[in-house]
């Protein structure tokens, strides 16, 4: 048994909130540079230049790359050999509160979805937990902006829709969204499980490194084909027309019922922010 101090969790979350919003990960930045090289539309090239310049300014000046500093999504992997005697959710929310205050991040969370009063401190976070083997606590934190989250969907397809049905759903979703999710986007796709499981799979898919490819041969084929076909839609950077609409497509799959085919599409903007720490 290893005891993990509450302060350690609070401080780690505070730091992750700030760093995720200020410092883009190298894998995303490299993918943006790659898409700048591939883009053939002159206006798309200008847009990508500005996005890349923006990300450098944010890094150098330690300021948020985007003003929508998001709602915080946290994935916890809790080792079975760690011991905590406090409310971990409360500790995480304290970290979020501190991070958004000390990092000068925008508070974008309302207390109730229908009366819409701002909570003032960007809490609560959306927290997913998993029990794993080991004596560590892994925190993956992703601030998620609304522009791209709003273009996501869950659809219960039928088994007969199959592979092609999934492709059509994804392509239609991306085409309808056009410039709204701030392309070039990363597309997280969850297939299988149940209604709620596929949504979680899609979000988890977005946490994978950008150059990671699926180990599942069908998912991998889907990732490759969809990336190519999304980039043929013509949407381009910010929807101004071009060949670089998506940086990557990530597909996560899970077994499902004989009679269902749940599919979730989670769109992620170019300000793809997530950071991970192992305590």
């Amino acid at each position: 048994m290893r005891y993990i101090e509450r302060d350690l969790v609070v401080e780690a979350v505070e730091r992750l909130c700030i760093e995720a919003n200020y410092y883009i990960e190298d894998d995303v930045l490299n993918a943006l540079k790659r898409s700048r090289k591939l883009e053939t539309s002159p206006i798309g090239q200008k847009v990508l230049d500005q996005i890349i310049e923006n990300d450098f300014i944010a890094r150098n000046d330690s300021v948020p790359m985007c003003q929508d500093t998001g709602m915080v999504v946290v994935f916890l992997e809790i080792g079975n050999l760690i011991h905590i005697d406090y409310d971990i959710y409360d500790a995480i929310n304290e970290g979020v509160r501190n991070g958004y205050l000390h990092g000068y991040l925008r508070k974008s969370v309302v207390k109730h979805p229908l009366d819409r009063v701002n909570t003032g401190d960007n809490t609560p976070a959306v927290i997913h937990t998993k029990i794993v083997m080991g004596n560590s606590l892994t925190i993956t934190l992703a601030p998620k902006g609304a522009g791209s989250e709003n273009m996501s969907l869950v659809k219960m397809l039928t088994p007969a829709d199959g592979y092609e049905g999934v492709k059509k759903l994804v392509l239609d979703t991306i085409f309808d969204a056009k410039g709204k999710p701030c392309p070039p986007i990363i597309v997280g796709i969850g297939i299988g499980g149940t209604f709620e499981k596929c949504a979680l799979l899609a979000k988890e898919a977005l946490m994978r490194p950008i150059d990671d490819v699926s180990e599942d041969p069908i998912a991998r084929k889907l990732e490759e084909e969809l990336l190519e076909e999304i980039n043929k839609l013509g949407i381009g950077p910010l929807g101004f027309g071009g060949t670089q609409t998506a940086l990557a497509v990530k597909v996560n799959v899970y077994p499902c019922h004989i009679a269902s085919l749940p599919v979730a599409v989670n769109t992620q903007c170019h300000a793809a922010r997530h950071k991970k720490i192992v305590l």
Partner: protein
Amino acid sequence: MKITTPLTDEVIENLRSGDQVYITGKIYTARDAAHKRLVELLKNNQPLPFDIKGQIIYYVGPTPAKPGQVIGSAGPTTSSRMDPYTPVLLEAGLKGMIGKGERRDYVKEAIVKHKAIYFAAIGGAGALIARTIRSVKTIAYEDLGAETIRELEVVDFPAFVVNDIYGNDLMLDNISKYRMEDKNE
């Protein structure tokens, strides 16, 4: 192309969808709740908190300024949420809007009718855009927090013309240009 505010008819007539512009002068921030209030004032024939004639409204909700900054990161928000309020403001003399994403058809028609321009700034380029904002003055509705109407003094604010007075539409026209039709559709 460099342009200054307030926008004149000559400038507007010269702008074409796809042009990259650098805007210098005063622009005004407003989002959903502020739009609602402005439109209500107009409906009741009451004066607006700033003279809207020839001006540009920027759809933005910045992050808090760090010490030493005039404003935090300040990229555009999705414009279509302001669509229902936009024709009334154009009628009142508004000449430009800056945001991200497409507008509805009735807004595009009102843009042509009232000789105005819809610009898009780079969504997600909040840090880059903030550098072009030199001063910030509160104009009205401080109670709305991030949605307060502010007057921004900008120098070479980068944007692209999306909808011009000739009915061109950068997004519609250019997406079909780069679209490779094959098995999908």
